C-alpha cells in the first residue's frame, strides 16, 4: 500500500518536468526516508479530508456568503459588503434573540451552583450515594425530543405541574408556556433539569481526585465541612468550574433543541440558532443567516479565548 502511493507520487513528480532526464533510481536510504515521510499522511488522508470538507470549507464558504444576499438556491448572488452584519445588530427583531440567551445564562448559574452543591455532599459518605448519583446524572442521557415531550406534558394545562401544585391546594390557571417571560423561564428550567447532571459528574470527578489525606489533616486541625469546601475543594476544582462556566456560556448562546421541540420558537422563545436556521431554511436568506452564524462563532471563539487566558489549561494541548 505504502509502496504503490510512493511510486505514483514519484512518477507524477517526474512527469511535472518532462524535459529533465530520467532520474536515476533513488538510493535505498533516500527511498526509505521518503516512505517514512509519507506513512503518517496515509493515516491522515481520511480524517483530514473529512475535517476540511465538513468544517473548514463550510466556515470559509459561510464567511463568503455572509457578504452577499444569496438565497441559497438561485445562481445569482450580489455582493452586499457588511450589510448583513449591520442588519443583525440594528434590526430589533433580529437582535432580540440575544435577550433570550439571558434566560439560559441565568439558568446556567443555577445549574452550576446546584451541581457544585450536590457534588460536594455526595463526595462525602452518604447513604444510597450511587442511587442519588445515577438519578442526578440520568437526565443528561435522555433523548432531547423525549425530554421535550415530557416537559410539554409537565407544563400542560392540568399537566404534571398543575397537578402537583393542586396537591398543595394551589389551583393555577397559568398557561406556563403562554407568555414570553414565563415560557422562557420554563424552557430554561428544562435545560437546568437536563444538563445539571453532567456538570455534577464533572465536579464529582474533580473532587474525588483530591487526595483524601487533605481532609483528614484538615479535620485534625478542627476544620468543619464549610472550611473543607472553602479551602480544599474549591481551589482543587477551580479549573473544572471555569471550563464549565465557559461551556455554559457557549451552550446558552447556542441553545436549540429544547425550545425548538417544545415551542418551535413561538411566544418569544426563538433562540439565536432557531432564528438562524429559520432565516436559512425557511426564509431562504442564506446570506443573512451566514452572517448570524459567523457572529455566533466569533462570540464563542472570543469566550473560549478569554477562558484560555484566565485558566491556562495544560490538558488542552494535543501534543
Amino acid at each position, binding site marked *: 500500500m505504502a509502496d504503490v502511493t510512493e511510486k505514483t507520487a514519484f512518477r507524477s513528480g517526474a512527469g511535472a518536468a518532462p524535459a529533465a532526464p530520467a532520474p536515476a533510481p533513488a538510493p535505498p536510504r533516500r527511498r526509505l526516508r521518503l516512505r517514512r515521510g509519507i506513512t*503518517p499522511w496515509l*493515516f491522515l488522508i481520511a480524517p483530514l479530508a473529512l475535517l*476540511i470538507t465538513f468544517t*473548514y470549507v463550510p466556515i470559509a464558504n459561510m464567511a463568503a456568503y455572509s457578504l452577499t444576499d444569496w438565497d441559497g438556491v438561485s445562481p445569482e448572488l450580489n455582493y452586499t459588503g457588511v450589510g448583513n452584519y449591520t442588519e443583525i445588530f440594528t434590526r430589533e427583531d433580529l437582535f432580540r434573540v440575544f435577550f433570550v440567551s439571558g434566560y439560559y445564562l441565568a439558568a446556567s448559574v443555577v445549574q452550576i451552583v446546584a451541581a457544585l452543591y450536590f457534588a460536594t455532599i455526595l463526595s462525602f459518605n*452518604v447513604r444510597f450515594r450511587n442511587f442519588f448519583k445515577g438519578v442526578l446524572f440520568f437526565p443528561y*442521557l435522555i433523548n432531547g425530543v423525549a425530554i421535550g415531550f415530557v416537559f410539554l406534558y409537565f407544563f400542560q394545562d392540568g399537566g404534571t405541574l398543575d397537578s402537583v401544585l393542586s396537591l398543595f391546594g394551589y389551583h393555577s390557571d397559568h398557561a406556563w408556556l403562554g407568555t414570553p417571560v414565563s415560557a422562557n423561564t420554563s424552557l430554561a428550567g428544562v435545560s437546568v433539569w437536563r444538563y445539571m447532571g453532567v456538570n455534577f459528574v464533572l465536579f464529582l470527578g474533580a473532587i474525588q481526585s483530591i487526595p483524601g489525606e487533605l481532609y483528614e489533616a484538615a479535620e485534625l486541625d478542627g476544620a468543619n465541612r464549610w472550611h473543607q469546601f472553602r479551602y480544599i475543594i474549591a481551589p482543587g476544582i477551580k479549573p*473544572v468550574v471555569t471550563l464549565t462556566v465557559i461551556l455554559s456560556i457557549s451552550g446558552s448562546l447556542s441553545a436549540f433543541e429544547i425550545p425548538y*421541540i417544545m415551542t418551535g420558537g413561538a411566544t418569544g422563545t426563538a433562540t439565536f440558532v432557531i432564528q438562524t436556521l429559520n432565516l436559512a431554511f425557511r426564509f431562504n436568506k442564506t446570506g443573512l*443567516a451566514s452572517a448570524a452564524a459567523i457572529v455566533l462563532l466569533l462570540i464563542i471563539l472570543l469566550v473560549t479565548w478569554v477562558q484560555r487566558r484566565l485558566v491556562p489549561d495544560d490538558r488542552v494541548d494535543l501534543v
Partner: protein
Amino acid sequence: MTRRAVARTLVYLSLIAATLVVLLPLGVVLLTSLKSEKEMADGGGALSLPDDPLNFHNYVSAFEGGEMLSAFGNTAVILLFSIGGTVLIGSMTAYAIDRFTFRFRKLVVALFLIAALVPGVTTQVATFQIVNSFGMFDSLWAPIVLYMGTDIVSIYIFLQFVRSIPISLDEAARLDGAGAFTIYRKVIFPLLRPAIATVVIVKGITVYNDFYIPFLYMPSEDLGVISTSLFRFKGPYAAHWETISAGAVLVILPTLIVFLSLQRFIYNGFMRGATR
C-alpha cells in the same frame, strides 16, 4: 451533636427533593402512557394511577403508528457506521500524530484543535450546501459522514491512550519487520480497547440522542431516526398524550437499560469526553 444531626437531615431532604424533581416528570409520563383514551378524557389529573397498569395498548399504537421499527432500524445503521468510522478515524489520527514526526505536523494538530472550538450548530448553514452538492442530502449517508468527520473529542481520547502505550513496543515490532500499518493494526489498536469502549459509549449516546442533524438532512418520512420519528408524533397525536407518552417511554427505555448496565463506564466516559 444535634447541629450535626440537623445538617444531615437537611442534606438528605435536599437529595430527596432533587430525586423527586428528576423522577416526577418521568414517572408521570410513564403513568400517562398506561392510561386509556377514556381515562385521559375523564380528567382524573396527571397524578392519578391508571386503571389497568398492564395496559400496553398505547405502546402498540405508538410503535406501529409512529413507525418506530424503521426508526430503530435507521438509528442502528447510523450508529454502526458512524461509530465504526469514528473509532477507525480517531485511532488512525491519534497514531499518526503521536508516533511520527513529519512536516506540517503542528499545523495538522492545530487544525484539529481549532475545529474542536467550532460548535457544529453554527456551521450547518454552509455545511448543508456541501452535503447537498455530494448528493447525500436525504440519505443515511449525510448523518454518518457528518458524525464521523466532526468528532474531535474521540481523537483526543485516543491520543491520550496512544501516548500511554510505550514506544518500545513499536520498536520491538519494527525489529521483527513490521511496517507502520502492521504496528497500528497488531500492536496499537488492540491496546486501545479501553479507549474504544469510552468512545463507543460517548459517541453512541450522542448519536442515539441527536435530533439536529437527522432533522436537517433527512426530511423523508421513511428515513426517520428515533429522534425525528418521535418528533413527528407532534402532528398526528397532538392531543393524544397517552400515545406521545408511550413513544417517549419507548425511546427512553433503551437508554435506561444501557445506563443501568454500564453505569461505571458511562461516568468515566463522560468525564474523559467532556473535559476534552
